[in-house]
């Protein structure tokens, strides 16, 4: 029950605290984490032309970030299997909260704001019980941990939300333990079973797709949602890198999964690894990146291969214009579609795995 005192405190806070918005952080279009030449890690905000708007120091190497829908707040996750995440106020560059994974759980490097930004969901492994969960954190309560729900698979890595509130989760299928191999050693490759799972907005399982048995080592890792809500998922093959396996899946609710491949030579060149996935800015196509193969592959929504763009170490991908913004470990940010055009290059800056696009906000 709200006491008179807390009510007054809240009312006071509402009047005194300035209502910050993304405009106060320069209205970034993208967020990305990077390591700089001196070895320090930071979260960067980028404008629509990929120019740096702000830099917020991070305590360790990042992986991906979750951006609040309208507050200039981003949650940056340590790379897998991190046990902490930090909330960055992108207007001030300050870390305002630190989220520690509860005992027996670790983060996967991704997160998602839901409920109008009031709740943060974090894919985690409950390694004691060997099951995947979404941790639930309440921003209104200073990011208190308020619950967790099952993802119905091991190793949930990425999560997105459809417009009707349905959640889609990429269960990577991989089990790791923080005490074994610095927490990155994969312990269940022979029996892993990745899945694409839909949960209703009250977190009940509504749809689950697993790959055919011969593809069970194809870890479903990253997700992109098209404007028309087609789900694209990128995979990382845990078998031989010379195996020819599809690395992109396309799905619409209630339909069969479509697996997409390039021609033989190009497929080999990806080295059985897709690092990121993104739909194009106009939603008419989708691309996956392979930093190991030094290229992105573009596909039509029906899975038809459209072409490759060669770029060493390219990994981060986000929708931009009618194509993509790509980032690499050599400091470059590139507009990519049939070919590529450099937008920004900071020598010594190594962009980490992912770029996060922020929704265009009403002025």
């Amino acid at each position: 029950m709200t006491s008179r005192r807390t009510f007054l405190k809240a009312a006071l806070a509402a009047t005194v605290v300035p209502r910050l918005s993304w405009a106060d952080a320069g209205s970034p279009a993208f967020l990305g984490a990077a390591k700089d030449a001196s070895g320090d890690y930071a979260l960067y905000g980028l404008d629509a032309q990929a120019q740096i708007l702000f830099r917020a120091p991070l305590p360790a190497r990042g992986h991906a970030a979750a951006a609040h829908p309208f507050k200039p707040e981003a949650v940056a996750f340590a790379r897998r299997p991190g046990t902490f995440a930090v909330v960055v106020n992108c207007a001030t560059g300050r870390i305002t909260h630190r989220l520690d994974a509860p005992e027996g759980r670790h983060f996967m490097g991704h997160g998602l704001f839901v409920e109008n930004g009031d709740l943060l969901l974090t894919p985690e492994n409950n390694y004691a019980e060997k099951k995947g969960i979404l941790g639930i954190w309440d921003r209104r309560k200073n990011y208190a941990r308020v619950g967790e729900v099952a993802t119905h698979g091991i190793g949930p890595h990425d999560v997105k939300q459809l417009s009707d509130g349905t959640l889609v989760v990429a269960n990577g299928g991989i089990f790791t333990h923080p005490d074994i191999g610095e927490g990155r050693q994969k312990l269940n490759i022979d029996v892993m079973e990745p899945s694409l799972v839909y949960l209703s907005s009250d977190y009940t399982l509504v749809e689950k797709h697993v790959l055919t048995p011969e593809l069970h080592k194809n870890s479903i890792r990253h997700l992109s949602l098209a404007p028309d809500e087609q789900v694209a998922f990128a995979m990382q093959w845990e078998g031989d890198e010379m195996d020819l396996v599809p690395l992109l899946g396309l799905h619409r609710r209630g339909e069969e999964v479509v697996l997409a491949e390039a021609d033989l030579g190009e497929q080999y060149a990806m080295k059985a690894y897709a690092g990121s996935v993104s739909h194009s800015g106009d939603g008419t196509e989708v691309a996956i990146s392979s930093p190991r193969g030094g290229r992105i592959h573009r596909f039509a929504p029906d899975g038809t291969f459209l072409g490759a763009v060669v770029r060493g170490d390219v990994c981060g991908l986000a929708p931009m214009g009618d194509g993509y913004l790509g980032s690499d470990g050599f400091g470059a940010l590139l507009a990519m579609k049939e070919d590529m055009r450099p937008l920004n290059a900071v020598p010594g800056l190594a962009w980490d795995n992912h770029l996060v696009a922020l929704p265009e906000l009403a002025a």
Partner: protein
Amino acid sequence: MRKLAALCFPLMLAAPLAADPLSDLLSEALERAVNEHTVPAVDHFDVATALLSDVAGDNCLPNAVKPAYNEAFDAWMGLQHLHLGPVEANGRILAIAFWPDKKGMIPRTLAGYIADEDPVIEDPEEFAQASIAVRGLFALEYMLYDEQFNDYSEDSYSCHLVQAVARDLHRMGAAIKAEWEAPDGFAQTLLLAGEAPHPLYLTRTESVQALYTMLTSSLEVTRDQRIGRPIGSFEKPRPTRAEAYRSDRAQRNVVLQLQAARDLARKLAPGEMPLAEAAFEKTIALAEGLNDPGFAGVEDPMGRLKVEIIGQNITTILGHLANEVGAPLGVSAGFNASDGD
């Protein structure tokens, strides 16, 4: 003086791109690597495949073709590590050397073409679009060395297939040379970077980075694939997973690849690379001393160990290259490529 400049260079990286702080060191390394390593490699493959095409055209029978086949494969071992531009365009790498063929596509597809007497071999343009499983050095290896295929007579379908594969290899060798060495070709793309007619690399540092990545990843492929595949596990070595074991080239390919990598390292190195030189010398000597041309010896624990040790020595080479070549040039393996999520 050269050493001192090497030490200073990484500090300059922090300067803004507009000034592109290109040291003479980096420029010289790039020019040496492109002009004295890549261009001769491209030339050699063109010449060797031209010879192969001519020889097979005159006499398609295995014993007549084998010497030219081995010449062409030798030349490929000097080029195959440059997964760049014209070499990797249009799936050429795989069309030239489809290995490993884990699903046995080559013998299956060859057998199908031969049984059907598929007329695609008659037209070079059409054959260029044929399955990569019937093209390139490994299809030819089956035709020349494998008992299932190599008992053919002159003027048979198989004979014309061998001629078509040889001709197609030279078509690709000539195309790579043309596209590499043209005035607006890939050599210029590397040398001129951002100012090239067809830019792919934003700066010369990126060009050097690309070549350095080819150097290190090619050694990793030799360690993890050429050596790693046949040695398998201690309990289960896999000699028939060795590269080109049918033509007894598994050992030779490792030696030639190490020599090609050493040459590229020497051209890129801004100064002396004494530790890398010593490690290359030791590793090449070990590989040459194997006396196990097809890696059949990995069946035996001692034979397997000898091959395995070469792989371990390659890891040592890689460490020295990072210190003696990568660091002074200010380049390293890719941030994302070398570390999955």
